[in-house]
């Protein structure tokens, strides 16, 4: 391809947001034919740096040079013209339109103001063949899987002639198999002479795919390393600023059955049956991990367990007692604790103070009351104890919880729930959107709770995390359990296939022909 960008040089980039220095004098460079990873925790400045390159943000200092010529991008349209494309974490697609319409959007048409979908479709098929990007141009985007939508985004960028493509956390939403497929595509693009920026916080992906790795922390560049031969703990130290504690090897000694789920069926928000007969049991002193691609029923199952979704049929036994039709506060009284998936929606009241959030449920406890009045002294003491014990970083107990970082909010919710010494804990995606440091802490706490004898049901879309923490792992796919395995009897590869609905021994799915691209 002629006119490909050979080199991008960002020098001394500074970007300020009100109260935050998002990028503090960062240098970054990229060559054609390489994948350059940007590694860092949430809020390290990775996305901000790349949005500057893509023209979405304007820089406050520094310069960008493309093939040696200094350029300034005022809008995404400018960068697109220069040959820079970006695949956002949240896809920039219109779900009610077809793939071809999405690609044609904003493009000048050969037929002036008339839509020329035929030409667009042909070109999509060419790109699809050249890079192995399988999509049907006539499919409605809203009907595509996340992986397919991502391919549409890549096609959009290629269609516009982008030679530099920025991928913002592209694997966050994919199954392991989809990640493998994506890496094959990306490697093909590199071979064709594209330069790629790969934003991620997953170390193993970065080392598997990339040529060079630049680590950011708190808006500063911590260094660039070649991927070959780099030590994992060195990268972690650059990201977090200290070494992480390794999860210790643990004995698995399950106790009595605490939570029993028998043939539970429930409908999703759209009225269709999302849980099609779930059977699971969780024992005292174990973590049962529930693996699955988002949207396969794990959210609904968690909601059934905590009592905010109606169970159509089946039983949920807590220590032998059917709680399927109990209210949430009754379940809590019976020893259940919940770390909800939507922590800001279901786990906390945003405008309430830290202390008030600690007592969202327990304010009715006799311990914190004097007659009908709340005993604020005791409450403050309790809240202070929890905040200290769980290392929640908050200026005061009166600070509204919305001003805390995601990790600290999650620690506080955890402190509140675990302080009740529950027999069963439902932890739905407890580390989603939480940075590595806080994640590590949450992991340690979950394991402590397990050792203390609590039965824990853990869901996570991060298969590595799930595999590392769980004693047993169940895989959910389209509302059914594909299987339950002891940790040592399975591996991530097998789990990944099950998450995609493929059982070991199944014949590999034939590649579906893409109708409109054939003949």
């Amino acid at each position, binding site marked *: 391809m002629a006119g490909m960008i050979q080199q991008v040089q960002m020098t001394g980039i500074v970007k300020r947001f009100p109260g935050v220095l998002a990028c503090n004098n960062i240098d970054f460079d990229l060559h054609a034919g390489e994948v350059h990873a940007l590694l860092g925790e949430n809020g390290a400045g990775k996305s901000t740096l790349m*949005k500057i390159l893509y023209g*979405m*943000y304007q820089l406050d200092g520094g310069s960008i040079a493309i093939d040696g010529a200094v350029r300034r991008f005022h*809008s*995404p*349209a400018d960068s*697109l013209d220069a040959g820079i494309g*970006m695949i*956002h974490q*949240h*896809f*920039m*697609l*219109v*779900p*009610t*339109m077809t793939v071809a*319409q*999405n690609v*044609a*959007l*904003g*493009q*000048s*048409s050969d037929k002036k*103001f*008339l*839509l020329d979908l035929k030409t667009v479709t042909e070109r999509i098929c060419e790109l699809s063949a050249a890079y192995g990007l399988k999509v049907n141009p006539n499919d409605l985007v809203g009907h595509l899987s996340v992986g397919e939508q991502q391919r549409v985004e890549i096609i*959009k960028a290629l269609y*516009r002639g982008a030679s530099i493509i920025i991928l913002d956390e592209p694997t966050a939403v994919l199954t392991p198999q989809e990640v493998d497929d994506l890496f094959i595509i990306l490697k093909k693009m590199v071979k064709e002479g594209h330069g790629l920026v790969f934003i991620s916080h997953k170390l193993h992906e970065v080392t598997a795919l990339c040529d060079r790795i630049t680590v950011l922390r708190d808006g500063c560049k911590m260094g660039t390393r070649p991927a070959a031969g780099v030590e994992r703990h060195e990268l972690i130290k650059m990201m977090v600023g200290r070494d992480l504690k390794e999860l210790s090897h643990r004995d698995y000694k399950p106790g009595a059955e605490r939570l029993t789920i028998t043939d539970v069926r429930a409908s999703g928000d759209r009225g269709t049956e999302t849980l099609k007969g779930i059977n699971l049991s969780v024992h005292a002193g174990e973590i049962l991990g529930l693996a699955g691609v988002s949207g396969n029923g794990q959210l609904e199952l968690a909601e059934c367990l905590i009592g905010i979704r109606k169970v159509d049929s089946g039983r949920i036994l807590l220590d032998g007692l059917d709680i399927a039709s109990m209210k949430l506060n009754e379940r809590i009284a019976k020893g259940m604790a919940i770390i909800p998936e939507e922590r800001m929606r279901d786990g906390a009241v945003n405008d309430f103070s830290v202390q008030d959030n600690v007592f969202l449920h327990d304010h009715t406890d006799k311990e914190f009351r004097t007659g009908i009045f709340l005993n604020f002294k005791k409450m403050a003491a309790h809240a202070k104890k929890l905040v200290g014990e769980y290392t929640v970083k908050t200026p005061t107990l009166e600070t509204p919880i919305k001003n805390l970082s995601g990790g600290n909010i999650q620690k506080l919710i955890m402190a509140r729930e675990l302080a009740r010494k529950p027999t069963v804990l439902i932890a739905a995606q407890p580390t989603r959107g939480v940075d590595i440091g806080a994640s590590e802490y949450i992991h340690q706490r979950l394991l402590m709770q397990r050792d203390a004898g609590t039965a824990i049901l853990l869901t996570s879309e991060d298969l590595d995390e799930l595999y590392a923490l769980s004693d047993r792992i169940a895989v959910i796919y389209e509302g059914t359990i594909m299987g339950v395995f002891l940790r040592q009897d399975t591996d991530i590869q097998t789990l990944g296939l099950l998450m995609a609905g493929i059982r070991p021994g199944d014949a590999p799915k034939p590649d579906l022909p893409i109708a409109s691209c054939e003949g």
Partner: protein
Amino acid sequence: MMNVFSFDVLSGVLRTMIALSTPFLYAALGETFSQLSGVVNLGVDGIMLLAGFFAFYAVFLTGNVWLGLLAAMIVGLIMGLIMSLVSVTLKAQQGISGIGLQMFGLGMSSLLFKVLVGTVKTVSGFAPVKIPLLGDIPFLGPILFNNNVLVYGGFLLVPISWWILEKTTLGLKIKAVGQNPAAADSVGINVNRIRYFSVCLGAVLAGVAGASLSISIANLFQDNLTAGQGFIAVALVYFGGWSPVGVLGGALLFSLANSAQLWLQVLGINVPASLAVMLPYLLTIVVLTVAVNRGKQPAALNKQFFRGEN
């Protein structure tokens, strides 16, 4: 009593339906463009009133119906620019600014009418034009091909709108801006410009709708001439599921119900008048309940767009 099911009656019902549906077609098709781009314009009724007044006033002064139509379109354009400025550039709540526009149109048209005209006066509006040959088709000819230019225009607007929305890059941009403005912005589409265009187009068409009341149907102006028809037009957009053909169906159904109830009364069929006048509204509610169109609603409807937020 006449035979209710005679061809004459049927023809009369359909003729009245065609005439009544014209203002709804213009206003609702215009609102469709506006809403597809993500802007609910509740000021349609006010635009219809002020544009209807100016259309009437221009014809009253000059006797030229085309000048009346032009005046209505200009007033519509100005009102559309005000609506866009307030709700797109200044990012005010669309519902509030739309109601503001409606009140402004209602009050201003009434005031100007009083000051400039004083009392009810009639003008000669658009006269029916019989289309050669087609107009001679028995039964259908007089119903469909013996109307005035504004009526033909309203019905032609249905395929034209469909064509713009489905077959042009502009239509694709309008729908993208209403569904996912961030996505449209990310591929270099000027979201605000598309919204300005769509709102103004909608307002110009609302202006024509006003003109079709004052210089095609009633041929006069009076306080609150629209009697809330602009709001019904907004409802018809939901009713029609944001598609021109759906809007056509809704406009025809509503007008048919109205026309049928008038004929029921004229023919002396013994239904209480108060029940008969309820018929169109009852029918609308029933159809709205049965045909759930929520899924088709533009996802970014009634939402302001700020760049850099997802």
